[in-house]
């Protein structure tokens, strides 16, 4: 199971998986490309990035585009992404509690490196990222 670790730097193999939880507040003032850069930098480091507020459709389309430009054989295969609508991720959910978020229309979005994540499994109230062991 994935566990949130302290922000130790991503160099060298570690047993845990780092999860970056990014609040809606922090995303608010950011330009589209800043958000995408932040997400992909995290993913390049092998982290799982969780966005409290998700992305707009236009930002998602640019995320796909930039991801494609950064794919490189044997280094980076792209991303897995999963979103959870508000009703699934309300205050009573695990993440809702972690984030201490009140309800909003935004959808929780989980993004991770494709080569590490076998499945970003979608569950009613719980996100479980199954990370391959190798």
């Amino acid at each position, binding site marked *: 199971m994935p566990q949130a670790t302290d922000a130790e730097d991503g160099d060298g193999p570690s047993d845990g998986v780092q999860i970056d939880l990014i609040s809606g507040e922090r995303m608010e003032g950011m330009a589209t490309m800043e958000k995408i850069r932040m997400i992909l930098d995290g993913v390049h480091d092998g982290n799982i990035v969780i966005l409290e507020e998700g992305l707009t459709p*236009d930002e*998602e*389309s640019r995320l*796909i*585009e930039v991801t*494609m430009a950064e794919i490189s*054989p044997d280094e980076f295969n*792209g991303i*897995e992404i999963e979103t959870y609508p508000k009703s699934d991720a309300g205050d009573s959910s695990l993440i809702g509690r972690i984030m201490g978020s009140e309800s909003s229309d935004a959808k929780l979005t989980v993004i991770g490196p494709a080569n590490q994540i076998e499945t970003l499994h979608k569950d009613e109230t719980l996100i479980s990222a199954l990370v391959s062991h190798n």
Partner: protein
Amino acid sequence: MGLFTELKDSISRATDRLFTEQEPKRIGIYGPPNAGKTTLANRIARDWTGDAIGTESHVPHETRRARRKENVEIERNGKTVTIDIVDTPGVTTKVDYEEFTDEMDKEDAIRRSREATEGVAEAMHWLREDVDGVIYVLDSAEDPITQVNTMLIGIIESRDLPVLIFANKIDLDESSVKRIEDAFPQHKTVPLSAKEGDNMDEVYDNIAEYFG
């Protein structure tokens, strides 16, 4: 024909077009890799213009550049609808060249994956800038609820583009059109087999209705 008459002719053709016809709508054929987009694009182009658009293959990411067929005139109930068809590379969020190494050597697999990533980026760009409507093709034998499908449909909806969902490969035993209708109830789903040519009348009726 003299230069002058030729010029006059082309001017009147251009003005004719300006005043009587609107520019053909550009319809993008989108969907995940291997859904049958090129097979469909070829069938439409062959039915109405006589020639094909691109190559079809069971290996994903066969289409790696968007390809356009202009002025495809589709006749329905005595009316003619003219569209440009854009066959796009299948959209995904990940490409691993090792997916192709069974089919080709490593060098070709790496080249294919590089071209595929460029193609997906290009397809996203077309979607933001250059299409007036979308045919979203799904393999009805596969689960339609994937992140790519949900995201792309969301992107298409956010741009207010008219969209038709095509449930392709209904000739397969595992095909389920209902699964697609249930996944995207807000849109019209049209069942077909692009390969066998099944239900093409309904396909053309809907294209004329939605994009005419």
